[in-house]
């Protein structure tokens, strides 16, 4: 199986239909006046359908803010965000909420699962919130691929960190969302569990054409991606196709990280 070719976009061009998510002129400012912080200072970026992209950058570069804005979790100060043909920046809170549960999947660094629900209930939660029934065959396939079949009745407190994160990945994949956003998904895991989770994310891209966007500060995690987008001081600072841990590390050094 061959990896889909990463697509570069040029700012200002009409959106190619192959983009899953796209942002133009994105700014996000916290505070105002002299104390204002420009977390994003004008970012144009696009993420191709069926690709695994990593967003990287030093602390404070704005990579988390970028992901929050792309995922409809935070409202940008300026610019536009498109999910497919939908402009997120025009939606009201309730519409955004519905869009999140129907078209976006999330994997977070920590506190990913609801402690009062068991693994199965956690996995189907977004679909239930949307009032949809999960496709049983697809549910079985996802659960089998993530090795969770024996753990479905367990509550999060009874699962290891790696197992919890696999449940979170299953939850993100179950609704076949347009994009899965992962925010430091390996940040709280030991290296073996981390590698497992990254493998699962990559294989979902390779085998089912899932689009995945991941924020990370770990070069070896970024090496699992098809493409790395580099961010510094709230601006795009370059990108790397078919990255390895070494190329990513040296690129980051170049940014002064």
């Amino acid at each position, binding site marked *: 199986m061959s990896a889909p070719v990463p697509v570069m976009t040029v700012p200002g061009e009409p959106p190619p239909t192959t983009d899953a998510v796209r942002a133009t002129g994105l700014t996000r400012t916290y505070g105002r006046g002299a104390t204002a912080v420009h977390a994003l200072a004008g970012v144009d970026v696009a993420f191709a359908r069926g690709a695994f992209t990593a967003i990287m950058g030093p602390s404070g570069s704005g990579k988390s803010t970028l992901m929050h804005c792309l995922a409809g979790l935070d409202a940008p100060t300026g610019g536009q965000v498109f999910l497919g043909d939908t402009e997120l920046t025009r939606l009201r809170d309730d519409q955004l909420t519905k869009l999140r549960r129907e078209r976006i999947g999330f994997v977070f660094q920590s*506190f*990913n699962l609801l402690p*009062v629900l068991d693994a199965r209930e956690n996995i189907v*939660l977004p679909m239930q919130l949307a009032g949809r029934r999960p496709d049983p065959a697809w549910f079985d396939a996802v659960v089998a691929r993530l090795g969770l079949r024996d753990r479905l009745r367990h509550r999060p407190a009874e699962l290891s960190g790696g197992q919890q994160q696999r449940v979170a990945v299953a939850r993100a994949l179950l609704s076949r969302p347009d994009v899965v956003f992962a925010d430091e998904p390996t940040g709280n895991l030991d290296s073996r569990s981390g590698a497992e989770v990254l493998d699962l994310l990559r294989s979902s891209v390779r085998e089912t054409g899932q689009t995945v966007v991941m924020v990370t500060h770990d070069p070896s995690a970024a090496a699992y991606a098809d493409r790395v987008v580099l961010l510094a001081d709230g601006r795009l600072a370059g990108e790397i196709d078919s990255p390895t841990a070494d190329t990513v590390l040296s690129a980051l050094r170049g940014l002064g990280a």
Partner: protein
Amino acid sequence: MFRVTLSGLRAHAARLVASTVAIVIAVGFVVATLTLSETTRDTMLEAVGARYVSAEVVVTSTTGEPVDGVAREIAGVPGVQAVDLATSTSVQALVPGRSGAQYLLVDSVAEDPALRWQQLADGALPDRPGEAAVSERVGADVGDVITVTTYAEDGVEESSQVTVVGVVDLGGDPGAGLNGRAFVSGDQVQAWGALGPSEVRVAGTGGTDADALAATVRDALAGQDVDVRTGEEQAVREAEGLTGDAEVLTLMLLVFGTVALLVAGLVIANTFAVLLAQRTRELALLRCVGATARQIRRSVLAEAALTGVAASALGVGVGIGLAALVSALVGTDSPIPLAGVSVPLSAVLGGLAVGTLTTLVAALAPARAATRVAPLAALRPLDPAPLRSRGGLLRLVAGLLLVVPGAAAMALGTAESEVLLSVGGGALSFLGVVLLAQRAIPPVVAATGRLVRSGGVTARLAGGNATRNPRRTAATATALLIGVTLTTAMVVGAASTRATAQAGLAAQYPTDVVVTGNTDDGIPAALPGRLATIDGVRAAAGLSAGGVTGPDGYEGWTLGVDPAQAAPVLRSTDDLPLPSEGTAVLPWWTVEGWGVEDGGEVVLTGDDGAARTFTVALGDTDHPLLTTADLESLDPDAVADTVWLRLDDGADQADVVDEITDVAGSLVPTASVSGLASERAALDEVVDVLLLIVTGLLGVAVLIALIGVGNTLALSVVERRQENGLLRALGLTRGQVRGLLAWEATLVAGVAAVLGVLLGAGYGLIGVASVLGGQGEVVLSFPWLQVAAIVVVATVAGLVASVLPARRAARIPPVAALAG
């Protein structure tokens, strides 16, 4: 360390609001009760004391004999200016413009102006027989002529007339609203049958010291059967006699105040436990930088003490304000008159002490827990899992040790009609129930949560959330449970008490209203039918009366009744059976007088000498009762004489009785109307008013408990900030977040309400059975509607308590989940 406590208080002020409000309400309640009680006492003292204002010394008999014998001696005592022999009696009086005779209490007016205490609203005080001053209640104006009926010693009715010369303002006298009062000259009181003076009021010459004068008079009267007191002492003494009832009420109110404090204590303990749980890291950091466990505990207790003092001070203010409000609303025109506010120092100090102590005691356990925080906890991520405590087992054992003997005592007390045993057992077992509830509630909430799982994903999440911190849920629900249990017990108890009392009243007085013609010619045959058409009269039965000779040879007044017609009129035939053909219902005195027995036979003789034998049924009747046909067979001259009436239950009894009086009076001028309709209505009213007061008071406890529900939810919202953010990120809309909290509140409040109602119903029924069981048959009545209303109100109020926390939860941005 104290500086840390202070800044901590400032930082957490918002979260202490619930504790503060709980204490303010509870303390305010206690202070208002004490203040109102003191105000009542002062108002009464002033009102009762009015008649002693001008008297330096009052001499009363210790034996009840008239005291006129000592008057002359007193008058001779140096320093005595005037002596008044106070006499009193009572009369029936007809006032122009008012129908029916009224009962007047008559007092003599002092001859010497120095001893006249009455405040005139109009006119003057009487100087001679034939004149009278009356209280406003009488409804007469200056110039009216009042016709007074008295009875001489031989029982002969005498009539006399007096002219009203003045109207007296009695102010807050508690007797002013009940009966009319008349003030006449001493001679007139004697003429109306007074029994000689009951007390001698003495005025001193100008500038005399009351105590010194009393001592002089006491010396002069040494050896006689009299008490000598100063006017002030006498006023206090009489006011105390009158405020006896008010003191029972105060005691009752304080019991409810205690309940409110108990509930407030639970809410406060909960708040502190949660506040400290959230500050584990902060406390651990303090330990890391060198604070000892002792210092931590002192800091927590100092925080509680400061909160307690501030809230109690506020509560004292609120209580006094509340008392002033009640006083202004009630005024002096009520059975318990109130004028202004008298704040006893004991209420202020007591309120402060009780509020602060409750807060401190409630904070003790959380403070102890805080000292167990290890310094390392500052460096570890927070563990949200609830801790299993040793206290749980202790509670279970203590609870069972209280419940089992308590319930046994209650059962024994009910069986043996030993009220004190039942009450003690009830209190003991309820304490045990409160302890056990802490353990029992979480599983019940969990089970209920599983039941509502079909309510969708939010209901399911809420069910899980409600039992995440079992101890907190238990404490929250227990506070509500206490209030609901006591309210229900009161409502159920009152309903059964009323039913029992009404049944007793119905058996004893089966007719609501009796109209008697009081004439030998009989009443018009149409009267019963005419009375039956009055709005509010449900049924009427006419009775005839005639003369029948009994076995003792004397002819006696005998009534004839149509059983078919009378049956729907009587509320009960338990004590008064209706005669059937050939049966005579006889009064109890005939057992001795005629030598008859129930079920035996009696021979009655008619006008023409013909004798008939009747079967005897004994009953509560003044005269023998036969069927109309039987009476006519013995006395063909029997005339229609009496009408029995039954009123509609919902009718305004007073209005209906007034109309009956009018109709009967217009057809038969001599007719008199009597009956227990008004007593029945009065009983209902008393029970209703008591119930209203008690429910209102317990409502305070429920209110405090609901503040606790809101508080617990608010703290959960703070704790679950990240989790709620995650839910928002995963697609929970703001409305669904609010729904989540609403479900959680409803679940906890609903379970507490249902359990409380079940417990309360049990306690209420047992309470009635043990209190009334000793006094005859108990009629148990269960007010389904009111009990259902309690459940609904408590649950809905829980829902309302979730509104503010839910709004805060819905505002949490989804990004909050990622900022972890």
